[in-house]
């Protein structure tokens, strides 16, 4: 009898025991969800990352907190869905820590680059100053050169003036202009005075010295007498000077003669002194 009753009961108890074992121990031995393992790995990688540890310790603590919640959730009731959820939150928190560390690193770069930019700008300013200095030096040299040239020209004029006994010599935009007064011609005449030779002759070596040199001879009169007569006289006087140069071996091609009559007075024709200044021959020697 004992055997008959005991047999099914024993089976019942055995299966119940197995069920309880399966419930309590079987579940406990269940392997951890992959999500939890993964979250832990990701968290530990972040902890080992120097930049994250340094720049985002707060965010990392938040991640650790959620990871612990996930681990506790697994140990206490093994709710795989809740554990998976907390593991996901852990990963997101770790990602936040990485983002904050990235931002800090970028900020540090930006700071560094700002200084670098300052440095480059400083260098540029130094270079600009150097350039300005060089340009100023160049300008100074040019002024110096121009002054030397001017002095040479002035000296040459003084020499010519002395040699030619001319009224006036000046440097204009057209070149050096030599002005001869009554020394060349007798009043109303268009033939050179014999003394004029001494005044004009220095032009001959000057023209010979450089075959590229040219001369323009311009005749002017005062306003006394007929216009046409004055024009004609000034033209013939200019021609006479040109002929003089040709006779002394200067190529006629290099010398132009023009009469302007009463045009372009240099002084008033109302006074004798003024009229005397207006009666003149100008020899233009282009630069």
């Amino acid at each position, binding site marked *: 009898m004992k055997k008959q009753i005991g047999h099914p009961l024993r089976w019942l108890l055995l299966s119940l025991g197995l069920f309880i074992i399966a419930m309590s121990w079987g579940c406990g031995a269940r392997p951890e969800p992959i999500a939890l393992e993964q979250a832990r790995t990701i968290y530990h990688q972040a902890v080992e990352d120097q930049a994250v540890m340094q720049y985002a310790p707060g965010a990392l603590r938040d991640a650790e907190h959620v990871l612990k919640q996930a681990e506790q959730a697994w140990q206490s009731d093994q709710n795989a869905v809740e554990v998976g959820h907390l593991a996901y939150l852990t990963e997101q928190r770790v990602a936040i820590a990485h983002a904050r560390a990235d931002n800090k690193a970028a900020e540090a770069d930006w700071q560094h680059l700002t200084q670098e930019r300052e440095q*480059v700008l400083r260098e540029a300013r130094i270079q600009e100053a150097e350039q300005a200095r060089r340009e100023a030096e160049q300008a100074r040299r040019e002024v110096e050169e121009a002054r030397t040239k001017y002095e040479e020209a002035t000296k040459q004029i003084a020499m010519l003036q002395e040699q030619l006994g001319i009224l006036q010599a000046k440097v204009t935009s057209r070149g050096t202009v030599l002005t001869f007064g009554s020394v060349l011609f007798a009043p109303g005449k268009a033939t050179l005075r014999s003394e004029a030779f001494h005044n004009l002759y220095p032009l001959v070596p000057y023209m010979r010295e450089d075959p590229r040199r040219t001369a323009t001879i311009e005749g002017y009169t005062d306003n006394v007498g007929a216009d046409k007569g004055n024009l004609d006289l000034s033209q013939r006087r200019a021609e006479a000077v040109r002929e003089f140069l040709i006779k002394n071996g200067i190529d006629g091609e290099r010398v132009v003669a023009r009469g302007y009559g009463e045009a372009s007075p240099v002084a008033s024709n109302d006074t004798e002194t003024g009229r005397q200044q207006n009666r003149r021959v100008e020899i233009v020697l282009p630069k």
Partner: protein
Amino acid sequence: MMVQCVRTQRWLASVAMVCLVGLSACASTPRPTGILSQAEHAVREAERSKAPQYADLELQMAREDLDDAQQAMDRKEYVTARRMAERAFVEAQLAEDKAIAASTREAADDLRESIESLRDEILRASGSR
């Protein structure tokens, strides 16, 4: 045999109790209003930040999870609502932080580029003399 039967019944009763306690715990899950409003706030903040420009994917995830949380709330599925709100909350934060990092990085890159072109300019200027 009788004693054993009673013991078995006690076992079953205790198992049932545990289940009942578990179920009642489920039934009495509080409405996760706190985390939901936190998540709503976080998503709004992220939308106002540079996230739409620099971290749109993360922002989109936060929006979708917030939407799911609100729908679960309407269905009175409070556990799901809490989880979705928690997800939306961190996702919104991540979107914002990623966007901040990306825009800082962009500013640094722009600065680096401007320095390089400045250097080129200086080099050309000094080379041409």
